[in-house]
């Protein structure tokens, strides 16, 4: 009967997150280690099947659709939660961990959701919780970036919800399966748009560098793993074989490279690199064969590990020195050698160097593209690989750890390898990057459909090594062109950032002017008669009602004072509490049934 027992890993994380603020002192550390481990254990113990089915009003909600596809994604998400939590052990603020765990819970909930409504619920938990990971950076810029992130994802969520409602209306079912089997409908288009926004598909991508570049050091480590890869999962599930995704994915891969080449902020560079790498997965979903879909899942798996590792490495630099800008770093190998070594594993993995994880996952996608004769798309993806080695394998480590030091004396003095737990987390991620790269059946055996593919063949090795080596030669010759400049590169967020400013101008100038005019008119035409009347009532009030009312008034004033204080409290905390309570109530209701 053991297979009947099923516990949702998201529930474990949410209970753990709620317990965190109550547990203080020495007990917090064991709890921080235990909860993600339990969630990982829950994923490991799962067997395929359908669990957590709830009848809610007319809807048939499925919280636990467990199959090969959801298992591989849940496995890597839960593993990354362990690594990310270890990386953030130094954080004393329990709400920071709480936001991270709610965020992971949202992702796991989405992955196991068997119907669109459950998916939407967890989708929104993910968006709300991750916003706090940006705000916890604590700078005024991160506050603004967090609001932009929240607004973009709210719009995306509304589009997704609209699609879900239309889908329900048309088919009478909320089931979440392949949505492209029938003809293209408005419903499936809207759902696709919602998924594409979270996957940062061009041109819906610019929220990503904006937010991840401003997130807290630990927050960015979590964010880089979950939102986009959960979206890739939903794309595989709902839109496998949708051809439009091939050109979109290739565009993402190339645009991400171009922006990363120009970027001066190391974390924004990594953010653009996410767009580029997710481009491979999106293109693979578009190709849609079992080999391609396996490639998308495998690349998501490998990507979460090496991108987490890279964000941890650069995050350590930011944490220790206070900056992640290439113009203010350089030559740090003397001060942060271990961080360098571990980050290099991530660099080699993302650049698809043989024996590292990216090589065995990216080859699947390339092979699938060639097999289906998408030659142009595949060759462009290979060109983007050359670019990936250029900006992430060479430019990033060179400008932070090698070359001349551009550090101020303060930065140089502060620089040192980070605390033990951060190194441990990086070491874990590096270990898995190497494990996947060297013993690839570990990853291939987890794929939803078995693939008969051998990445280490002479021809593939020659191809990869030549591309890498000659890209290295170009870097050596043209490194002057890549020297850091204190600049930013404008992206499509320009439109809504300046659009917001236009709205502000409208509000402050024309609308304000109208308001003032109306006020003036009211003052001269309406106020005088009113004053006369009110003088009479004031007399009446003074002599007749005062005595009665005084007592009541004091009571009202007291209540008003309390409400005022409640409203003045931090708006973010209020939102968080509200969302938390709603989520808890829903979950309690669902699991109590």
């Amino acid at each position, binding site marked *: 009967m053991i297979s009947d027992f099923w516990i949702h890993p998201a529930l474990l994380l949410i209970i753990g997150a709620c317990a965190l603020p109550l547990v203080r002192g020495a007990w917090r550390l064991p709890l921080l280690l235990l909860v993600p481990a339990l969630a990982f254990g829950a994923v490991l113990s799962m067997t395929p099947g359908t669990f957590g089915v709830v009848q809610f009003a007319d809807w048939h909600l499925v919280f636990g659709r467990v199959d090969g596809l959801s298992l591989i994604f849940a496995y890597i998400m839960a593993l990354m939660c362990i690594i990310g939590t270890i990386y953030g052990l130094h954080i004393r603020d329990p709400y920071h961990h709480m936001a991270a765990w709610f965020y992971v819970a949202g992702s796991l909930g989405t992955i196991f959701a068997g119907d669109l409504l459950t998916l939407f619920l967890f989708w929104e938990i993910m968006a709300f919780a991750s916003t706090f990971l940006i705000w916890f950076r604590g700078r005024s810029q991160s506050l603004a970036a967090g609001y932009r992130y929240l607004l973009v994802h709210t719009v995306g969520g509304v589009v997704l919800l609209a699609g879900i409602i239309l889908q329900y209306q048309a088919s009478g079912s909320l089931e979440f399966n392949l949505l492209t089997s029938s003809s293209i409908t408005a419903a499936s288009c809207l759902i696709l748009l919602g998924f594409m926004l979270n996957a940062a598909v061009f041109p819906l991508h610019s929220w990503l560098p904006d937010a991840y570049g401003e997130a807290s050091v630990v927050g960015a480590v979590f964010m880089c793993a979950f939102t986009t890869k959960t979206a890739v999962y939903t794309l595989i599930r709902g839109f496998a074989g949708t051809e439009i995704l091939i050109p979109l994915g290739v565009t993402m891969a190339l645009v991400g490279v171009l922006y990363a080449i120009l970027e001066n902020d190391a974390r924004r560079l990594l953010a653009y690199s996410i767009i580029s790498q997710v481009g491979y997965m999106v293109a693979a979903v578009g190709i849609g064969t079992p080999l391609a879909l396996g490639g998308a899942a495998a690349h998501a798996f490998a990507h979460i590990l090496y991108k987490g590792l890279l964000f941890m490495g650069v995050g350590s630099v930011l944490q220790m020195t206070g900056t992640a800008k290439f113009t203010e770093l350089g030559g740090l190998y003397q001060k942060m050698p271990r961080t360098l070594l571990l980050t290099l594993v991530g660099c080699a993995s993302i650049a698809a160097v043989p024996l590292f994880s990216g090589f065995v996952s990216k080859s699947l996608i390339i092979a699938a593209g060639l097999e289906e004769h998408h030659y142009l798309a595949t060759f462009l993806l290979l060109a983007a690989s050359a670019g990936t080695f250029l900006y992430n394998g060479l430019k990033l480590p060179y400008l932070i750890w090698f070359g001349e030091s551009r550090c101020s004396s303060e930065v140089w003095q502060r620089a040192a390898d980070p605390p033990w737990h951060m190194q441990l987390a990086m070491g874990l991620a590096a270990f898995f990057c190497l494990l996947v790269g060297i013993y690839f059946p570990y990853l291939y055996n987890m794929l939803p459909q078995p693939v008969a593919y051998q990445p280490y063949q002479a021809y593939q090795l020659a191809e990869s090594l030549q591309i*890498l*080596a000659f890209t290295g030669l*170009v870097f050596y010759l043209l490194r002057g062109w890549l020297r850091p400049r204190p600049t930013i590169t404008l992206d499509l967020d320009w439109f809504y950032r300046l659009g917001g400013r236009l709205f502000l101008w409208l509000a402050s100038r024309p609308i304000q002017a109208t308001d003032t005019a109306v006020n003036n008119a009211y003052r001269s035409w309406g106020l005088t008669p009113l004053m006369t009347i009110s003088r009479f009532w004031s007399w009446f009030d003074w002599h007749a009602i005062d005595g009665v009312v005084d007592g009541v008034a004091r009571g009202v004033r007291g209540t008003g004072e309390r409400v005022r204080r409640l409203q003045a409290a931090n708006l973010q905390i209020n939102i968080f509490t509200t969302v938390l309570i709603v989520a808890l109530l829903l979950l309690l209701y669902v699991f109590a049934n």
Partner: protein
Amino acid sequence: MIVKVIDQLRQNISLLARLGLAALVLLLLWDVLLLDKSHAHIALERLPGFWALFGLAAAVALIVLARLAAGLGLQTDEDYYDK
């Protein structure tokens, strides 16, 4: 220990450069003399050193494109949005 190794390497930078060059030559020789090209997907791939040329061209093209985009005004001051 890591620092010492890197310091050593930096002192022998010209030797490293020559080793790198030797690796490039070896890769090309492998491609021209030994590699079984029956796995090639398109005819172009059978050219000697095709993938080396591909990597070279792709990297140069991406850098030039990025610098072009920067020159067109996409790259701007850090305080652009604060003005």
